[in-house]
């Protein structure tokens, strides 16, 4: 037990991301309103994006722009001095994709409301089984 606690504290951000992800999963499964389900989906996505960006973080590192690139005394570049930009670029794409998904899902929800006058899942099921 005494060994486990420092391990949990050292990776506190991962645990909090998992909590966030589980909030999103709960909202997707248990909430009755379609818009609430969409919010849950978005929370889930942002939790995963947070996880990926935090992988690229380094302590005592700076932004991934080479220092003194134009003043050139030819010093060697240390990878440990710069935050890894690869997860940032991948997650930039993921954010744009997630907002596109959100927009399409909202449009579908509006169409469903126009047709059935409700956004609640149980009422929709009742209406569909009639």
């Amino acid at each position, binding site marked *: 037990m005494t060994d486990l606690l420092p391990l949990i504290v050292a990776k506190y*951000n991962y645990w909090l991301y998992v909590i966030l992800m589980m909030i999103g999963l709960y*909202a997707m499964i248990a909430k009755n309103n379609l818009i609430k389900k969409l*919010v*849950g989906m978005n929370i889930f996505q*942002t939790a995963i994006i947070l996880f990926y960006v935090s992988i690229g*973080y380094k302590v005592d590192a700076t932004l991934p722009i080479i220092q003194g690139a134009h003043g050139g005394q030819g010093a060697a570049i240390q990878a440990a001095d710069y935050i890894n930009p690869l*997860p940032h670029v991948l997650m*930039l794409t993921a954010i744009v994709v997630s907002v596109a998904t959100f927009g399409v899902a*909202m449009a579908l*929800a509006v169409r469903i409301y126009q047709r059935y006058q409700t956004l609640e899942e149980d009422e929709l099921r009742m209406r569909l089984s009639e």
Partner: protein
Amino acid sequence: MLWIDLIVLTFVIFCAIAAITVKDLLATAILFGAYSFMMCLLWAVMGAVDVAFTEASVGAGVSTVFFVAAVFRTSRRTKD
């Protein structure tokens, strides 16, 4: 550094819980915008400035506009 990260992350989790529990969809929209801005802050802290810019414009801006537009075209009422 660690404390900013921890405080903002706590705010993010509170905003997420509030956004899915509140019983008014317009309030959900606003809380979701707050959630996105907290997320943007978190990315700026982690050094992902490009991601922070994108989140502030796309996540907090455009998605909140979509959300409010969809809520005005449907209903604010929700049962849970």
